[in-house]
């Protein structure tokens, strides 16, 4: 069975961090599990945690009047769920729910923010990695905004 240190060190988002930085991050992490259908967090709640998915999938949803819950994006093993812990007002923008039985590593956002304040090098390294995640999701969202399957003309 792999240790928490190994799981975190091998994840794409933390790849390349040195052992001292990893040790600081591991100090804010714990293993968690969610049953299929269970909610990880709810829109508007305090965003004090983020997750690294190890097994199963998580879906981000929001409630739209007259449409009900709408799925925004599903996230797979190796992907990060949540970045609202990084920015004030530290509140979730969407709901997150387990699509399958999920195993994940949960990170205490306040703990990590404190360590980033104390160690700006760690702070920059973490912020750079999360910026990559955010930009990747932004690019995908932009393409989806083009509605590439919807605009069809022809005879």
């Amino acid at each position, binding site marked *: 069975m792999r240790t928490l240190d190994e799981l975190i060190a091998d994840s794409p988002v933390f790849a390349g961090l040195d052992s001292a930085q990893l040790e600081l991050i591991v100090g804010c992490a714990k293993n968690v599990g969610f049953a299929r259908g269970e909610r990880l967090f709810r829109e508007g709640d305090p965003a004090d945690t983020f997750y690294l998915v190890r097994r199963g999938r998580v879906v981000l949803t929001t409630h739209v009047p007259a449409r009900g819950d709408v799925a*925004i994006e599903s996230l797979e093993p190796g992907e990060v769920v949540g970045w609202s812990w990084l920015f004030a007002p530290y509140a979730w923008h969407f709901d997150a729910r387990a699509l399958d039985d999920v195993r994940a590593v949960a990170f205490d956002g306040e703990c990590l923010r404190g360590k980033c304040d104390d160690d700006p090098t760690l702070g920059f390294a973490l912020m750079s990695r999360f910026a990559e995640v955010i930009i990747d999701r932004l690019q*995908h969202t932009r393409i*989806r905004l083009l509605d590439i*399957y919807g605009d069809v003309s*022809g005879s």
Partner: protein
Amino acid sequence: MATSPAAELAPRGAMAPVPYRVSSRTRETADTWTLHLRPLGPTIEPVAGQFDMVYAFGVGEVPISTSGDPSGDGCLEHTIRAVGAVTRALCAVNEGDVVGVRGPFGTTWPLDEARGGDLVVVAGGIGLAPLRPALTHALAHRDDFGVVNLLVGARTPADLLFTEELERWRLRPDLDVGVTVDAAPGHWHGDVGLVTRLVPKARLDAAVATALVCGPELMMRFTVEALVAGGLEKDRIYVSLERSMSCGVGHCGHCQLGPLLICRDGPVFRYDRVEHLLGAREL
């Protein structure tokens, strides 16, 4: 040996349509139907990747890729999305009606060249229809290929084609299937996100893999980017292009793309041969 009239092959590229009777039709989505056609005379035998000109008598003719297996008995399957006058007329035909068919036209998916390596089939929206015969061919000759991946993207779950077949394909241990949609109701249990996000998860040896891609041009562009980022060379990636094809035989020029006529030189192209044309705003 005497040849029955029904087995007579229509001259390739004939300008006159041959009659086909609609033996049945299957509703795929709210605006998309698959017509199952039986020959009333000479037959047409398209190969995976090729298209036929399908004629709604009195309305007009449209190019439609073959979406069925080459059956050998001349029967055809064409999956049609109602987006204009002709396709609306074709989607509204009844069982027993007769339509005209010319063809087959165009180039084919490179299944012989792909043998021996992994295969990744990436379909966006109705792009799954032209790829379906290529996939069924690969599954019928499964030992000829390494890992076979099918990656499907659609706008919503309601826009997915061939849903029963997709479920059967998912159950096959020798086929890796990924399906994702751009938007979904909260109860959808599948993936949500761009089809390009499935590409890095595909199991393939990029050095010997071949990719077949079909969908809206923008989807193909971003899919190719993801495939190249995954290590595939552009000369191992094939795309099926669509332009306003009219004559089907390279005479009218309606489907011209730079030096190419899509109906004659395509619709299936090796990506490195058309990349510069797809990026040209002046064309």
